[in-house]
């Protein structure tokens, strides 16, 4: 049995802002069913890479393939349409709306027939049922799916964002520092949630600064430095200090060695 190819792949991504080179030929692969963490120092190109993969910006050079098919995302909407959902760190929910309304925000379903098509009537009951099902699948405990999101804790609010992403993502979920705005206990809840998203079969790209969390969750760790992927390690083959050393350039990675050879 041949191993499956990557679900999302990028080759030689370049993005320049004037003189500043944010991405300098970055490669990327995400395989089915895995949690891939992306780590790197500030300015290493993590967020530029993520923005390119989620359609928030267009790379100057390089290719992106989804399931082996070349894709060109001109907006986050394009990426969403292709089945890629993103969870942001800053709790992108509408606090006054209830949980079900947030899960379906921008994708509301209407009733069938004349009531829906003619009178544009929302299928509120159907949306609540669906939202409740997603919450049950991810084992997110809330009193009522009909309560406003502002009544929830920060962790539960991020749970709403994760549930929304998991509900709509057909290919993969990108989590951009999903716990950065949360306390210790709430972070724990969201980390468990990320594991459950993977259990549900969706691969996850996780951007995080928190090494212990990265090493706990990730199947593979993609290390960015100076706008490139300098190494991919796993929590089994490398220790945390080793990964940090590669990230900061203290330990030359294979790529670093190759570069030095070129220049010498």
């Amino acid at each position, binding site marked *: 049995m041949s191993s499956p190819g990557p679900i999302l792949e990028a080759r030689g991504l370049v993005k320049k802002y004037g003189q500043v080179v944010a991405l300098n030929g970055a490669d990327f692969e995400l395989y089915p069913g895995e949690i891939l963490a992306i780590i790197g120092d500030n300015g290493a190109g993590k967020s530029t890479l993520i923005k390119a993969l989620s359609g928030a910006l267009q790379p100057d050079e390089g290719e992106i393939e989804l399931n082996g098919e070349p894709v060109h995302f001109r907006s*986050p*909407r394009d990426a*969403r349409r292709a089945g890629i959902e*993103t969870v*942001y760190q*800053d709790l*992108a*929910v*509408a*606090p*006054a*709306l209830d949980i079900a*309304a947030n899960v379906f*925000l*921008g*994708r*509301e379903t*209407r009733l069938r027939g004349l009531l829906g098509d003619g*009178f*544009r*009537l*929302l299928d509120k009951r159907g949306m609540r049922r669906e939202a409740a099902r997603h919450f049950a699948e991810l084992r997110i405990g809330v009193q009522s799916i009909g309560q406003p999101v*502002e009544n929830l804790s920060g962790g539960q609010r991020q749970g709403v964002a994760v549930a*929304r992403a998991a509900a709509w993502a057909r290919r993969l979920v990108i989590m951009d520092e999903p716990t950065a705005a949360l306390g210790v206990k709430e972070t724990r809840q969201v980390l468990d949630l990320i594991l459950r998203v993977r259990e549900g079969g969706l691969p996850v790209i996780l951007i995080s600064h928190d090494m212990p969390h990265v090493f706990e969750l990730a199947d593979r760790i993609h290390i960015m430095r100076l706008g490139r992927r300098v190494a991919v390690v796993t929590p089994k083959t490398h220790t945390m200090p080793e990964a940090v050393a590669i990230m900061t350039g203290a330990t030359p990675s294979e790529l670093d060695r190759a570069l030095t050879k070129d220049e010498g």
Partner: protein
Amino acid sequence: MQFVRRVIAAPTVGPFIALVLTMAFFTLKTDRFFQAQNISLVLQQVMVVGVLAIGQTLVILTAGIDLSVGTVMALGQVIMTKLAVMNGVPAVPALLLGILTCVGFGILHGGLVTGVRLPPCIVTLGTLNIAFALTHIVSNDLTFTGLPTVETFFGRTFTIGGTDFTYGVVLMFVLYGLTWYGLNQTAWGRHVYAVGDNREAARLTGININRVLISVYTLAGLTYGLAGWLLVGRTQVGDPNAGQTTENLDSITAVVLGGTSLFGGRGTVIGTLIGALIVGVFRNGLTLIGVQVIYQYLVTGILVILAVSIDQLTHRRRA
């Protein structure tokens, strides 16, 4: 029990209690207040501000504000009556042109707020003056009388149990019903709330923010045009001095008393109806017990600041 809890938690309960208390106060103060004919009069007095406040509610739900409501309505009303009386335009096209003028102002507001990214208060402060000037320029400060019956239709009455009601009041309730439907039963309504509640989150979920905002300002313009039609029905003339004193603040007062937050994203149009009724009851009751008009301004000013303060304090607690 669940039902009782939901009723208590409903956002319109506070305003409703305030309305009942206000009515109880004036009922105790004067025998003339709580009579069918007087209540019908309150409704007639409320209908113009009530309809203006529908547009104001939509705008405020998106975290905007419209300071031009009264003068835009005045301009629409002057145009529809002048065209019919002075320019020989048939009644229906004249009426439609008046309403379309208000819709045009709505589109202009929406375009400037989304396209040039100007703050709504500045945009509408500008159009407040533009519409004010145009009203006087177009009308030449004349009052138009002898209007076609289409334009005065909403002043007509029908009788239920010996009490007269105007068709204008019926239109007001119908418009509230339609707006409630749009806000609560359609995806558009959810998007209006989301845009006012957390614009960035709304954008990230793929909602077209600009389209929502333009639709809101355009519909608001339509309500000002319809309010102008109601005003003509009530006064039976086209008056260049109408709509320029209390209407602006009263429409905002109605929205705020009705429990809608000036920060956007929270509120109900039914609350606004109750808020408009509170304003109407206050004005009517104070007149009945012989309080001079100037004190009514005083009371309205205090009311609106009080209501906004409550909003601010609860908002801070939530944040």
